[in-house]
C-alpha cells in the first residue's frame, strides 16, 4: 500500500523509478477519501494542486534520471505532506481552526512551506488544530474534533492533532505541526508516531500565525525518526524574515543517524553536537538523564512502565543512565499559563475586523472590535486572552507576568545544570494515553495538565522528540520523550534512532488500516 510508506522509503522508490509521485499522491488522496470522514484530520484538501505538484515532481525526476544526477535530488521531491492550518500556504485558506479566520486566504507562504515546495514536496492540504493552537485535543477547533486513529472515541491530542492523526492514519507521509507547549510531541505520543520539536530559533516562524512568540516553534510529525531528520534538514535554517531564527549552519541530520548505527556506543554522538564538553579523542557513550520529577503520582502506571522499559533499552544499547533532578518542574504549568496567554493576548490583538477575518459592525470602531472578537473567538481563546490581559494589566504585571518570567529563568537553569551532567533527558511525553472526547473539555485546568511533561522544554527553548515506546492495555500508544540541549538535534535524533532500530513500536499501525472498506 503506497500510502503506508515512510518518506524515506517512498523517496527510494521514486528514485528507482518503481513508482511515480502522481501514483503516490493519488494513493494518499484515495486513502483520505476512504478514512477522513471518520478521522476528520483535514480542514482543507488541495487534490488538484497536489496532483499538479506531483506531476511537476515526476518531470523533475525524469529530467534528473536522463541527466544522470539523481544524487542531488531532495529526498522530499514528490513526497505528499500535510500542513497544520496555523502555517501559511499562499493562496490557500488558513483558518487557525478559528471562525475569525474562516475565509482568510494567506497572501504568502510561510518560510517552512516555501522550503518544502522548493524541495519538490507535494502539499495535500491543511490539517485541523485547536483554535490558534490553544489546546491539547483539537476539541477547541471551531470546525470539528479530529478522532484518534487508534480509537475513534478518543482525542488525537493537540494542538497539532490533525497532523498527528493524518500521519498515524496514513493520510499523508509526514506533516508539519507547531509546538508552543507540547503541541507536536503530545499528539505524536497519543497517535503512536514520531514528533520533533526543534530548538527555538532552529526553524523560521515567518508565516506561522503567532500564538506565544517566545515559545512557538514549527516541528515535524513523521512515521519514523529518519523522516523527522529529513524534514528538519529541509525546513531548518536562518531566515532574515524571522529575527529570532538563529544564523547557524544546518547539519546533515541523517548523517547523525548513520553514525549512531543502531548502537549507543562511543560513536553514537556526533562530535560537533557536544564539542563544548567533549573532544573526539575522549569518546564515551551518551549519558541519559532520568528526571525524578517526571515520575509522579497521577501518571498512568502503564505509561511509567513502558517509559522505564524504554530507558532500559537505551541502557542495554550502551547508554549510561543517571537519575537527575529538574527541581522547578512543578512550576512549569503556572509559568506557562501566564506567559503564553500574555503573549497570546498581545498577538491576537491584530484580529480587529479591519484588515482581514470576520468583521461584525458596531456603531463605533470600539464596538466593532468588541463584537468582532466576542463572536469570532471561541471559549478557550477568549479565556487565554482574558488571562493574559489580566497578567499584563496595571497593578498585576509584577505579581503575575514578571514573576512568571523570573521563574522561567529558574526552569531554564534546571536544564542548564542537568545538561552538563547528561546528553539527553528521557521521560514520558504525556502522563496518560489518549483520553476520551469530552472527558476534559469542561475543566480547563485538567486539560492543561495533559501538557505537564512537555511545557518546560518550550520555556527553556530546547529541542525534544516523542517516539513510540509501547501500548497500554486498551491498545493505545505510549510515547517516550527525549529532550536535548539547544541546537543539539543531532544527538537527540541519534539516540531516538538507536531506540527505534532496537524496537518495533513504530511499525504498528492502527486497526483502522485493516478494516478500511477500500482495502
Amino acid at each position: 500500500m503506497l500510502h503506508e510508506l515512510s518518506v524515506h522509503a517512498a523517496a527510494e522508490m521514486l528514485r528507482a523509478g518503481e513508482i511515480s509521485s502522481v501514483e503516490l499522491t493519488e494513493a494518499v488522496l484515495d486513502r483520505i477519501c476512504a478514512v477522513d470522514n471518520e478521522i476528520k484530520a483535514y480542514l482543507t484538501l488541495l487534490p488538484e494542486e497536489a496532483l499538479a505538484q506531483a506531476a511537476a515532481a515526476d518531470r523533475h525526476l525524469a529530467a534528473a534520471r536522463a541527466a544522470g544526477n539523481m544524487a542531488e535530488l531532495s529526498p522530499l521531491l514528490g513526497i505528499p505532506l500535510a500542513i497544520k492550518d496555523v502555517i501559511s500556504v499562499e493562496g490557500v485558506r488558513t483558518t487557525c481552526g478559528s471562525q475569525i479566520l474562516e475565509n482568510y486566504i494567506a497572501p504568502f507562504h510561510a518560510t517552512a512551506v516555501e522550503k518544502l515546495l522548493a524541495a519538490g514536496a507535494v502539499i495535500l492540504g491543511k490539517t485541523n488544530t485547536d483554535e490558534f493552537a490553544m489546546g491539547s485535543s483539537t476539541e477547541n477547533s471551531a470546525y470539528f474534533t479530529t478522532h484518534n486513529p487508534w480509537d475513534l472515541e478518543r482525542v488525537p491530542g493537540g494542538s497539532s492533532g490533525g497532523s498527528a492523526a493524518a500521519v498515524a492514519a496514513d493520510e499523508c507521509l509526514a506533516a508539519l505541526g507547531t509546538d508552543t507547549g507540547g503541541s507536536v510531541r503530545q499528539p505524536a505520543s497519543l497517535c503512536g508516531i514520531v514528533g520533533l520539536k526543534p530548538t527555538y530559533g532552529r526553524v523560521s516562524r515567518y508565516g506561522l500565525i503567532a500564538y506565544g512568540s517566545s515559545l512557538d516553534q514549527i516541528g515535524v510529525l513523521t512515521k519514523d525518526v529518519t523522516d523527522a531528520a529529513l524534514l528538519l534538514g529541509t525546513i531548518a535554517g536562518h531566515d532574515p524574515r524571522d529575527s529570532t531564527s538563529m544564523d547557524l549552519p544546518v547539519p546533515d541530520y541523517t548523517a547523525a543517524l548513520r553514525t549512531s548505527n543502531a548502537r549507543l556506543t562511543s560513536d553514537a554522538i556526533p562530535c560537533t553536537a557536544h564539542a563544548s564538553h567533549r573532544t573526539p579523542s575522549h569518546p564515551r557513550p551518551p549519558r541519559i538523564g532520568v528526571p525524578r520529577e517526571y515520575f509522579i503520582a497521577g501518571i498512568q502506571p502503564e505509561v511509567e512502565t513502558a517509559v522505564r522499559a524504554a530507558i532500559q533499552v537505551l541502557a542495554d544499547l550502551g547508554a549510561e543512565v543517571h537519575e537527575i533532578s529538574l527541581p522547578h518542574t512543578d512550576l512549569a504549568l503556572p509559568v506557562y499559563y501566564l506567559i503564553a496567554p500574555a503573549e497570546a493576548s498581545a498577538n491576537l490583538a491584530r484580529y480587529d475586523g479591519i484588515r482581514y477575518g470576520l468583521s461584525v459592525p458596531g456603531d463605533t470602531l470600539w464596538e466593532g472590535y468588541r463584537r468582532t472578537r466576542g463572536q469570532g473567538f471561541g471559549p478557550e481563546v477568549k479565556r487565554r486572552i482574558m488571562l493574559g490581559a489580566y497578567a499584563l494589566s496595571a497593578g498585576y504585571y509584577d505579581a503575575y507576568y514578571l514573576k512568571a518570567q523570573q521563574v522561567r529563568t529558574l526552569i531554564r537553569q534546571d536544564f542548564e545544570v542537568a545538561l552538563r551532567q547528561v546528553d539527553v533527558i528521557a521521560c514520558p511525553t504525556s502522563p496518560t494515553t489518549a483520553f476520551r472526547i469530552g472527558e476534559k473539555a469542561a475543566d480547563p485546568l485538567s486539560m492543561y495538565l495533559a501538557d505537564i511533561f512537555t511545557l518546560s522544554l518550550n520555556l527553556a527553548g530546547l529541542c525534544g522528540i516523542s517516539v513510540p515506546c509501547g501500548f497500554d492495555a486498551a491498545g493505545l500508544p505510549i510515547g517516550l520523550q527525549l529532550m536535548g540541549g539547544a541546537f543539539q538535534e543531532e544527538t537527540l535524533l541519534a539516540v531516538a534512532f538507536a531506540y527505534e532500530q532496537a524496537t518495533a513500536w513504530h511499525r504498528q499501525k492502527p486497526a483502522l488500516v485493516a478494516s478500511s472498506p477500500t482495502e
Partner: protein
Amino acid sequence: MSLTLAQVEHIAELARLALTDAEKALYREQLSAILEYAAILQRVDTSMIPPTATVLPLRNIMREDIVQPSLPIEDVLANAPDAADGCFRVTAILEG
C-alpha cells in the same frame, strides 16, 4: 485569588471582547481557579532572579536598509472586510 465581576468586565474591555453575562460568570469562576493555581509561584523567592523574555542570546537584530518588493496592494486588501480606493475602510472615529 477570586476575581470580582467588575474585574472580569474590566479585563474584557482591555481585551476588546464583548462577553455575554453567562461568559462573564464562567470566566470569573475559571480564571479565579487558574489564578489560584498560579499563586504557587508567589512562594518562590525570585528577588535575585532576572526575568527571561527570550531564550536566545540575540538583541536588536538589524538588516541592511535595502528596498525590496512588498505585497501588491490588491493582495493586501484581498482579505479586507471593507476597502475602498486602495485603503481599508473603518467606522468614523471623529465627529464630522
